[in-house]
């Protein structure tokens, strides 16, 4: 019984880790204040759910989820390219609202607030991942793949260009780099991984609706990335584990779920505020949130 619970937590850590690493790519390494990251998570989840519910095999669905999210990331980067600072933050935040409005109102596609129930568990070449343990193994494999991919990106020359763009976009442009293209690729890649995370989320919870992807879900991820520290992959991993596990004892002290929910959010919000005030670099961060 307890092992089942820990497996569940491990799966959540895995999904959120992919999501946090993807945000790290855009925010920490490229300096894109993307507060709309949850929208990519949502797009990935809905695409994957809708495809598998129509019979498309999981492996194609999850890849398409990533690709279509990446496409949206790319598209979003075009009009937001010239925006700076809080206008960029607000525009990306507004993007989350727009995606929410679409999933809510395009009922013929998404069933609106009724959501998509019965999302099938993943099945790859006939191998079904229906038990939580097998799902955990699948997640582990994908997490490792994503981590190594992102690590390759950030430690490559391209990664240096990303950080240069973050630190001083004008200088980078002066040096001849097309920062517009760089930012678009970064946002697209970030969205791709967020879409993958979204797909895994959908197939684990087996039910998604528009309210699963709102500003509320942004706080834990933002918290993780800022606490772990910008531009630090290791920080992100540690922060994900600690932050996902931290509120869990509340459940065991006997609080009902109607109390545990809000308390989780309060803890995350408080930690976020404390870190912003007292330790804006986070624990392992290279730079501060500018």
């Amino acid at each position: 019984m307890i092992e089942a619970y820990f497996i569940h937590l491990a799966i959540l850590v895995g999904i959120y880790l992919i999501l946090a690493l993807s945000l790290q790519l855009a925010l920490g390494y490229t300096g894109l204040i993307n507060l709309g990251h949850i929208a990519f998570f949502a797009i990935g989840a809905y695409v994957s759910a809708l495809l598998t519910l129509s019979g498309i095999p999981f492996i194609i669905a999850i890849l398409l989820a990533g690709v279509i999210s990446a496409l949206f990331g790319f598209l979003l980067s075009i009009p937001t390219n010239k925006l700076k600072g809080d206008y960029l933050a607000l525009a990306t935040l507004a993007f989350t609202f727009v995606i929410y409005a679409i999933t809510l109102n395009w009922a013929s596609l998404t069933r609106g607030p009724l959501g998509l129930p019965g999302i099938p568990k993943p099945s790859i070449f006939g191998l079904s991942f229906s038990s939580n343990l097998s799902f955990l193994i699948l997640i582990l494999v994908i997490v490792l793949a994503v981590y190594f991919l992102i690590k390759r990106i950030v430690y490559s020359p391209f990664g240096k260009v990303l950080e240069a763009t973050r630190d001083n976009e004008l200088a980078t442009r002066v040096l001849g780099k097309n920062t517009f293209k760089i930012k678009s690729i970064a946002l697209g890649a970030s969205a791709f991984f967020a879409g993958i995370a979204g797909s895994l989320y959908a197939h684990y919870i087996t039910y998604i609706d528009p309210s699963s992807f709102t500003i509320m879900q942004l706080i834990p991820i933002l918290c993780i990335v800022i606490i772990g520290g910008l531009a630090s992959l290791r920080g992100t991993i540690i922060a994900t584990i600690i932050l996902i596990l931290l509120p869990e004892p509340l459940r065991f002290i006997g609080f009902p779920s109607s109390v545990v929910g809000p308390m989780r959010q309060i803890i995350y919000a408080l930690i976020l505020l404390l870190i912003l005030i007292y330790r804006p670099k986070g624990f392992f961060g290279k730079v501060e949130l500018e």
Partner: protein
Amino acid sequence: MSSIAFQLLINGLIAGAIYALVASGFSLIYSTNKFIHFAHGAVIAFSAYVLYFLFSILGINFGFSVVLAIIFASLLGYLLDIAVYKQLRKKKTSSVILLIASVGLLILLESLILLLFGADVKTIGFIKGSKGMEFLGAIITPLQIFIIITSIILLAGLFLFMKKTKLGKAMRAVSDNKDVAEIVGISSEKIYSWSFIIGSAIAGIAAILIGLEQNLEPTMGTNLMIKGFAAAIIGGIGSVHGAVLGAFLLGIVENFGIWYLPSGYKDAIAFVLLFIFLLFRPQGILRIKRRAEK
């Protein structure tokens, strides 16, 4: 057919009045402090719940409860400034961090409301339901008329305050150019605090009216804030008249929009308008520049 058009106009004005109350307080704070205080919505929500608590739970006289709720709103806004924003200002952080902090505060306060009051919808049972009054073919209730009038009076009062009073002029000075204002001897820290006190007091009044007109539910703060913020952006953020213009425009466009579209699209109209304006016309309709207003 024209009576429904008139009813939609009335509905639009009521919604606009409510958004204007939200947006004006928020705009006052923005123009003075130069960052987006998202938690403004939570101040409104919390104050409405405080009114509910004082009046519907403790049974305190309605007039007293209203006054206490407004004072609470002011204090809460002031507290948020002192405890969080001031600390960040000391470190010369950018407005982006202040924005993220304000989002964190919004979530914090809303979750607190959820924890203290529960997820169910609450009603402030001060006004009993009854048929509204007929007015040129449209129905409007006394409370709704009161909301529109209060909104207009409050906004007029706010304009006069900004134009005529010493504090109001000082606020405009800090809003235009903080450094010059300090040279002239205005303490910007004090002005920041005042902007939160006054802006949040307006939020408190908004909370009372909204709480009476609609029911209370924990996420009401986020919803109102998005609408108020959209109104401010559409009209032109950084000026209170921009916010008010945007608010009434938004209210009317929303209500006429759902004449043609299914009713579920009402919020979507605000989101899409917000997104488009942020991308293509961030100065808003009145073309408010972020720094000086010529």
